[in-house]
């Protein structure tokens, strides 16, 4: 009996046999479902690297203080680094206007009703946004703890914000998002004294439950508390990016290489 002519198919196993090969070609693919997005993201990343820019993707729920964090960061670093911001919301130019008021170039993407940025939208925005001369580009994603985690934009690092007015168990509720973080920022920390239900230690332990050893930092952008640790992280990332560029290497957010290595 052989596997060629069909003589191995007996009355007993006929129902399990593969359908006749006539006219059907099975093609093995083993490709990420978001391969097109990932190709575009890799293109964006090369573009950032060529311009020697560190690209940081900010993600959080709406109202966690992404724009306020950027304002405080720009105030602290504007004499040290040249910063650019791509803002993204469903509608309005409000956030870009807040950033421009700080004297920093900002491009606003409005996604209509789309709930996340993808690599193509960022690529389109880059056409209107000169990278030359920038040190750090912040990409403020749509406020959403679900979808943005799944789309690589070409950024080097992910920052996830969790404001203390939210629940401290959000990392357990949104594991895909918090697993994607290279640093977790507990924002609006000045409000901790009036909130009795947010325990920063508990929030951190939920992050550790995701097998993540990334820094979990507390800060208040409005009151200027705890910013130094965040600025230190940022300066360190920029130094590492510059060292990588010397050797022609690049980096993706921490969580993504795992998947790529496993599925290669």
């Amino acid at each position: 009996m052989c596997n060629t002519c069909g003589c191995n198919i007996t009355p007993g196993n006929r129902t399990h046999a593969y359908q006749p090969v006539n006219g059907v070609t099975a093609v093995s693919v083993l490709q990420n479902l978001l391969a097109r997005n990932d190709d575009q993201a890799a293109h964006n990343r090369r573009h950032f690297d060529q311009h020697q820019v560190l690209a940081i993707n900010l993600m959080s729920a709406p109202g966690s203080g992404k724009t306020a964090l950027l304002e405080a960061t720009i105030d602290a670093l504007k004499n040290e680094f040249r910063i650019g911001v791509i803002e993204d919301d469903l509608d309005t130019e409000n956030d870009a206007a807040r950033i421009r008021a700080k004297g920093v170039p900002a491009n606003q993407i409005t996604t209509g009703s789309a709930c996340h940025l993808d690599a193509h939208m960022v690529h389109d925005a880059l056409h209107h946004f000169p990278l030359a001369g920038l040190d750090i580009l912040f990409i403020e994603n749509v406020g959403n703890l679900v979808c943005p985690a799944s789309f690589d934009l070409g950024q080097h690092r992910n920052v996830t914000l969790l404001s203390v007015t939210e629940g401290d168990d959000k990392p357990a509720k949104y594991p895909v998002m918090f697993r994607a973080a290279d640093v977790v920022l507990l924002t609006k920390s000045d409000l901790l004294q009036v909130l009795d239900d947010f325990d920063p230690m508990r929030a951190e332990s939920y992050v550790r439950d995701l097998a993540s050893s990334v820094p979990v930092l507390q800060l208040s952008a409005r009151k200027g508390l705890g910013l130094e640790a965040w600025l230190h992280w940022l300066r360190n990332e920029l130094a590492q990016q510059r060292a990588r560029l010397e050797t022609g290497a690049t980096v993706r957010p921490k969580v993504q290489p795992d998947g790529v290595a496993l599925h290669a």
Partner: protein
Amino acid sequence: MHELSVCQALIAQVEQLAAQHAATGVKSVHLRLGPLSGVEPQLLQDAYPIACAGSVAAESALLIDIAPLKVKCETCGAETEASPNRLLCGQCGDYHTQLVSGDELLLMSVELLTGVA
């Protein structure tokens, strides 16, 4: 959720494969998804007929395998099952683990209708 846009990206990939093999249609599309992929299998199934309508993959079946969630401990070396928000070692409880399986979002294979040989 973004299942429809994921489905549209999937159909674009399938259309490309169909064109490469000069296929006249698609019989089935086989995916492997992990619980940490960020994609809900049922929502993907619901979005699929909308995304494939009018394409070469219209009428095709979407088959989804769910990958198990497994971590390997960097401390004790054990490989154990985990849950999406508790990726701790099932043996020693350490959080220094690497995901071995569970974040897959993979197009495994397609069956193309390529006319009678």
